């Protein structure tokens, strides 16, 4: 059964292709590509599959959607809105919902897939961050990933704006307000984007073009680049026996991974379709058409815009100022553009910032365990806390109503929270990481607690420690020695290096010290060899060593 020759027809196809492309060798190499096995490597896959679903359903929706702001009087299948003035965009969305079979389903799949697309990318990115998989040589792919994520926010916002229902138009209104706040050029940018004053008749056709052509085109190109780089550099992998910086271990692409990944695509698709079938999303027919004079309370953006919405809500107006009579609305600029800008810069620059601090120029193929990079992990958690609090602040009115808390009090809680929260999160996370490191070190040195109690000749009871499995020892020993940067370092003659004396050099040394100072050293730790009385128990009476007797 192993050496079945390829059937004649298949050989013919293969030869046809190979005659023209010389693919036998490359083809085999790529079909043998190794995919390490771990659940967390499937997060990026979910994002990829949702993107495919978005493309498919998006094409379907364009068959009927009319990106036009021409006002018409509705006279269609949805009787409750008959006789109401609305844009053609809104009317055509009603048409897709109530006249096109499967239209409602496709709309809901498109919306759910968009939410899951951004969510899976976010979690994928957190995974890559916390395991240090962004380190050299993969910084560029991290950057591409960050740009994909940020572009998707914009893509999602624009898509949300197209149906021209009340919340969607309000989103465009807020976008317009934020653009207007840009000093000097804000009014020009807004006039050019909207083709005049708000709302005008141009914004939906233009957002439509951006949403279905320009941004998806760029996204597709970036996703292809992301994938090709990944293919070329190969995956990172978690520490384990046989997995080294030089060698990647996993399931080959063909046949097993291809079938598993195919199955996973269908699972992803099934979950999204299942949600779309049974969980209503964005019922635009209930919201009614957009008018700039109406509003409803409890408006919520799609989840990925929540952090900006929250920032807009809690940022106080104390910093707004005027220069020679010209207004600078800081309370719009900072949360509206600054929050996104800060996120963009932090994400894109992080691999290089960390490299600069740690002077780590090596190639890394084995992922870090988050605990072994405590400062990075703590920073990541602190940033996530800020993001999470801003995100929650985006629904402070709903929190206020649900829990009967004063509305302004919720604002204050979040204002204080985004400052105190990350500090607490940083300290706590770092301590947890260091605690885990100590436990690792102890497990490595003394083996694991077996639960067996033994009585020594002296009458004392001790718990027997047993040797950890080779796999555990391997994983524990994967912790890399952390070079501690000594801030006061001098050369043999007691002279500081010129670099250490410059302002940037000093800053860099201080940061490096801060980044590495607390790390637990595993150097010189020998794995537990199996006998439990291996240090300091030459005499049976000297059982004061606490490490052995817990």
């Amino acid at each position, binding site marked *: *059964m*192993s050496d079945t020759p390829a059937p004649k027809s298949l050989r013919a196809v293969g030869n046809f292709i190979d005659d023209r492309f010389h693919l036998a060798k490359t083809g085999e190499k790529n079909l*043998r590509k*190794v995919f390490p096995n771990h659940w967390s490597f499937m997060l990026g896959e979910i994002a990829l599959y949702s993107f495919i679903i978005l493309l498919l359903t998006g094409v379907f929706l364009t068959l009927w959607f009319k990106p036009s702001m021409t006002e018409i009087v509705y006279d269609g*299948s*949805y*009787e409750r809105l008959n006789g109401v*003035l609305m844009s053609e965009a809104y009317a055509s969305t009603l048409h897709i919902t*109530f*006249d096109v*079979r499967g239209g*409602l389903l496709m709309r*809901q*799949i498109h919306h759910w897939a968009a939410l899951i697309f951004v969510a899976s990318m976010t979690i994928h990115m957190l995974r890559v961050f916390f395991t240090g998989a962004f380190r050299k*040589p993969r910084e560029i792919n991290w950057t591409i990933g960050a740009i994909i994520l940020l572009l998707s926010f914009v893509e999602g916002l624009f898509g949300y704006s197209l149906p021209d229902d009340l919340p969607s138009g309000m989103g465009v209104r*807020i976008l317009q307000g*934020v653009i207007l*706040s840009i000093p000097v050029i*804000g*009014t*020009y940018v807004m*006039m050019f984007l909207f*083709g*005049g004053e*708000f*709302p*005008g008749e141009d914004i939906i056709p233009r957002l439509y073009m951006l949403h279905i052509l320009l941004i998806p085109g760029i996204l597709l190109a970036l996703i292809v680049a992301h994938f090709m780089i990944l293919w*070329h550099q*190969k995956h990172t992998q978690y520490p384990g026996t*046989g997995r080294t910086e030089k*060698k*990647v*271990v*996993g*399931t080959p692409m063909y046949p097993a991974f291809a*079938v*598993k990944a195919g*199955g996973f695509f269908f699972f992803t*698709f*099934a979950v999204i*379709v*299942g949600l779309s*079938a049974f969980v209503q999303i964005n019922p635009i027919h209930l919201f009614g058409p957009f008018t*700039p*004079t109406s*509003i409803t*309370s409890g*408006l919520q953006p799609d989840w990925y815009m929540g952090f900006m*919405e929250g920032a*807009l*809500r809690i940022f106080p*107006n104390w910093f*707004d100022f005027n220069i020679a*009579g010209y*207004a600078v*609305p800081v*309370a719009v600029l900072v949360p509206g553009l600054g929050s996104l800008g800060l996120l963009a810069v932090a994400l894109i620059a992080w691999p290089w910032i960390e490299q600069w601090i740690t002077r780590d120029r090596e190639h890394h193929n084995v992922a870090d365990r988050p605990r072994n990079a405590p400062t990075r992990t703590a920073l990541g958690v602190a940033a996530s806390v800020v993001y999470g609090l801003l995100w929650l602040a985006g629904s402070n*009115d709903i929190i206020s109503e649900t829990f009967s808390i004063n*509305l302004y009090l919720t*604002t204050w809680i979040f204002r204080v929270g985004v400052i105190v929260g990350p500090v607490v999160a940083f300290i706590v996370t770092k301590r947890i990481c260091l605690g885990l490191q100590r436990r690792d070190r102890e497990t490595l040195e003394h083996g694991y607690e077996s639960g067996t109690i033994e009585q020594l000749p002296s009458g004392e009871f001790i718990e027997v420690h047993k040797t950890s499995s080779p796999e555990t020892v391997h994983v524990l020993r994967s912790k890399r020695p952390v070079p501690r940067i000594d801030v006061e370092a001098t050369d043999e003659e007691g002279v500081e290096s010129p670099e250490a004396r410059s302002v940037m050099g000093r800053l860099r040394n201080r940061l490096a010290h801060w980044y590495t100072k607390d790390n637990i050293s595993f150097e010189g730790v020998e794995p537990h060899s199996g006998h439990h009385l291996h240090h300091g128990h030459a005499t049976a009476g000297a059982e004061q060593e606490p490490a052995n007797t817990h």
Partner: protein
Amino acid sequence: MTDNNNLNGAGAGAEGRDRVIGTPTADGDTLVSGTEESAASSQQRHIGPYPAVETHPRTEEQQRKGERSAALWFLVAFVSGVGFLVSYFLFPPAADGAPSIAHPATAQLANMAMGGTLALSLFAIGAGMTVWARQVMPHYEVSTPYDELPSSPKEKSSFSDFFMRGAHESGFTKRPLMRRTLIAAMLPLGLAPVVLLRDTGPLPGDRLKHTMWESGMRMVVEGTDREIRATDLDRVGGMISALPKAPHEGEHGHGLTLNEQAKAVILLIKMDEFGPDMTEQQRSWTADGIVAYSKICTHVGCPAALYERTTHRILCPCHQSTFDAANGAKVVFGPAHRPLPQLPLRVDDEGYLVAAGDFSSAVGPTFWDAEKGD
């Protein structure tokens, strides 16, 4: 595959999952057997430059079971796929009399039927493929070396020599006149796309600072044609959302474009008394205790539509900017900075409320020159 393999296959297969084929079993006297033949052959099958460390083949019995359950899943997928097609035709679009998806409840039902069958079909395909991969295919991991990413110094210097030779050959480095004029030639073309965008919209000028309100213009309740008298405010709980009255034909709307509405909409509020922060000028813009403020929030432009009579506060539901209606709509909480612009009011000879001019300042989100005069 022989029957013999199947007989002891179950035990050896389970064991084989944890151990390397060909190593002694736990009791030490026999090699892992039973699946040895298939194991050896499956190892051969994926032999290549990087052979698998361990292979865990599935026994014939396991494979057969796997095949059966995968096939069952695929059948489920087929049936629910057919169900999807059926439910597509089950619910027709707008038909007279018959239940159609034009009715929201039927649309929802159709959505559940189509979505449910489609989801089940997709799920079953996924499940079948997973069973296939896990129970029919052998499990093994192979390893490949990571590519040595930096090129060797020899390759690098060869490339660098080649590249520089080409650069010299082309004259690009040696002939600055040509190089610089070429760069200069590109510059205007680089600007062209920016210039081409000029006609996407008009220049702002001072159009953001003015609205259609003029002295003597009457106002109507938003959404209706009813003109507002000063006395109307007493009946409706103190607050009316209003727009300028404009002549129009037809039964729909108020003859205003969305652009006009977006700037002209006002809140009319009847106050018992005004606060100390209300200037003389602001008081003079009120009529019979009625004050008019722009309804558009000065933060990012949502309608500040919530009014609480007891505290005379106007709240924008988007970002909770709060304005004090009794004190010139100054900001009392939230991210907005500028007060809501006030519209001067008076009462005309027939008792109708009319505007006495345009707003006191620019309406809507604050922009660069919003607080500058014309």
